[in-house]
C-alpha cells in the first residue's frame, strides 16, 4: 500500500523509519515537512531524504508544498502527523479533507481535527468510501480504538477513566515520591524533555480534556466539545496534599472521566488508592473501561514517543491494508 506522509517531526520520523526498517508491505510515495516535499510513485528513498533533512533542515524540494503532495502524489493512504492546533485544527483539517476528497484513506495523530471536526470528517470519509483512523491521538501506543472497535465489540461502554497526560502523571509521581513542590517537579519534567516550554496545555488539563472529547465522541457519538469538559489542572497542588493522601494509602492523579448516564465529562486531580490499576508511574498512560459484558478492562502503556506513536499509526495503516485490500 502506498503512503503519503505529511509532517516530519518526532512522530513522522518514527513512522518513516519503522516503515523503512520493517517489511510491512507499506511504501512511502509522498513525503512533506513544513518547508518542502518529495514524491515518487515507485517509492521514495527514505534514509537519503531523512539524512538530507538533518543536514539542510528540509527533506525535499522547497517548491513542492504539503498540499501538492496531498493533491498530486500517487498514494492510497495519507498519514497526517503535522503539529496540533487545538483551537482551529488547521491546517490539518484542510489537509485531511483534501485527501478524503480524493478518496484516499487518512490516518492521523493530530488531536485538533479529530476533537474539533470529528463528525464532519467521519461523514466525509464515509461518503467517499474510505477510512479515517486516529488511534494515535489518544494514549500513544495503547491500542484503545482497536480495543473498543474489535475486542470489545458488542459491549456497552458504561464509563471510562483515564490517565491521559504523561506530563501531569510524571509531575504527580515525582511530587508523591520525593515530596517535590509542583514547581520543582515541573522543572524536572522540562529537563527530562517531558514538558513543553509552555506547559499550560498539559498542566491545566486541556490536553487530557481534548483526548477525553475524542474518546467520548468515538464511543458514544454525542458530539461533545472541549467546552463541555469540567476541567481542573494540577498546577495548584501542594506537596502537603499528596502527603495527606499518602497517609490514607492513597495518592493524587489527574483523571479524565466520562460517564454519560450521569452526564459526567470531567478532568480533575483525584484522590485514588495507590493499589488502583490507574495509578501508573512516570509518563505512562492508563485507561479503564467499564462495560456491561467484559466488566472492567484496564490498558496501560506509553502515551508518547516517536516509535511508540508510530506503532499506533502503523496499526491503523495495516488495518486499512487488510480491510480495503491495500487500495483506496
Amino acid at each position, binding site marked *: 500500500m502506498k503512503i503519503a506522509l505529511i509532517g516530519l517531526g518526532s512522530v513522522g520520523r518514527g513512522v518513516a523509519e519503522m516503515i523503512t526498517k520493517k517489511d510491512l508491505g507499506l511504501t512511502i510515495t509522498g513525503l512533506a515537512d513544513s518547508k518542502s516535499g518529495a514524491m515518487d510513485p515507485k517509492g521514495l528513498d527514505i534514509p537519503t531524504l531523512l539524512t538530507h533533512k538533518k543536514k539542510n533542515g528540509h527533506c525535499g524540494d522547497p517548491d513542492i508544498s504539503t498540499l501538492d503532495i496531498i493533491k498530486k502524489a500517487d498514494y492510497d493512504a495519507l498519514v497526517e502527523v503535522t503539529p496540533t492546533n487545538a483551537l482551529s485544527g488547521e491546517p490539518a483539517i484542510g489537509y485531511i479533507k483534501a485527501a478524503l476528497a480524493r478518496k484516499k484513506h487518512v490516518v492521523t495523530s493530530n488531536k485538533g481535527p479529530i476533537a474539533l471536526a470529528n463528525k464532519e470528517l467521519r461523514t466525509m470519509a464515509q461518503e467517499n468510501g474510505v477510512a479515517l483512523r486516529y488511534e494515535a491521538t489518544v494514549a500513544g501506543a495503547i491500542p484503545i480504538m482497536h480495543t473498543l472497535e474489535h475486542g470489545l465489540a458488542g459491549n456497552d461502554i458504561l464509563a471510562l477513566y483515564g490517565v491521559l497526560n504523561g506530563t501531569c502523571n510524571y509531575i504527580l509521581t515525582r511530587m508523591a515520591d520525593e515530596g517535590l513542590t509542583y514547581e520543582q517537579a515541573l522543572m524536572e519534567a522540562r529537563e527530562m524533555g517531558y514538558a513543553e516550554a509552555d506547559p499550560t496545555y498539559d498542566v491545566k488539563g486541556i490536553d487530557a480534556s481534548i483526548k477525553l472529547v475524542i474518546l467520548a465522541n468515538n464511543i458514544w457519538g454525542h458530539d461533545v466539545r472541549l467546552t463541555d469538559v469540567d476541567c481542573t489542572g494540577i498546577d*495548584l497542588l501542594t506537596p*502537603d*496534599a499528596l502527603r*495527606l493522601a499518602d497517609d490514607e494509602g492513597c495518592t*493524587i492523579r489527574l483523571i479524565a472521566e466520562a460517564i454519560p448516564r450521569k452526564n459526567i465529562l470531567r478532568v*480533575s*486531580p*483525584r*484522590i485514588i488508592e495507590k493499589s488502583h490499576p490507574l495509578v501508573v508511574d512516570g509518563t505512562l498512560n492508563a485507561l479503564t473501561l467499564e462495560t456491561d459484558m467484559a466488566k472492567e478492562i484496564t490498558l496501560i502503556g506509553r502515551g508518547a514517543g516517536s516509535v511508540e506513536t508510530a506503532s499506533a499509526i502503523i496499526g491503523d495503516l495495516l488495518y486499512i491494508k487488510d480491510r480495503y485490500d491495500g487500495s483506496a
Partner: protein
Amino acid sequence: MKLEMKDSPGQLVAALKPISDVGGNIIAVIHQREQGSDHGILDVQIVLELPDGQLEKLVVLLKEQGVHIQRIGEQRLLYKRTVILIGHLMHTDLSDTVDQIDSTGYAEVSELAMSMPAVKERSSSRLTIKSVTREDMESAIAILRRVSQQKSLLLIEPLEESA
C-alpha cells in the same frame, strides 16, 4: 435490628449467613432466652454494619430464611468519603466550611487533618465526611463544591467508580 426466629438448632447461623452474603459486618449479637417466653421462638438483636443500599436485600434474604424482623433500629452514618482541600483555608473560615456540612443534619465532617506552611502560603487539609446514604453524600459533596468555588479553594475528590 431485632429478629424473631424458631428456637431450633442451626437457625441462628442460618439467620446470620445472609448478613455476610450482602457484605455486612456483624458488630454484636445479643440473644436472651427469657423464662416463660414464647414457645420455641427466639428473640435476637443484631448490631451490624452494611454496605450502602444493602439493607433491603438483607430484609428479603432474612424473610426467605423464615426469620421475622421485629424492628430495624436507628441507621447510623455509614457512608464515608475523604476529600482534600487546598487554598487559604484559615482566611476563608475553615470552621464555616466544616459547618456547612455539619449543619445539613445528614452528613458530618468526622475527621480533619491539616498542614499549614508559611503564613501567606496555601494550606492543605484532608476531610473525612460521613453520611447515612450515598445520596446524602452526593449532596454533601455538592455543597463542598459550591463552597470551594465561592472561597476559591481547590477541592480534590476521590475517584468513585460505579457503573
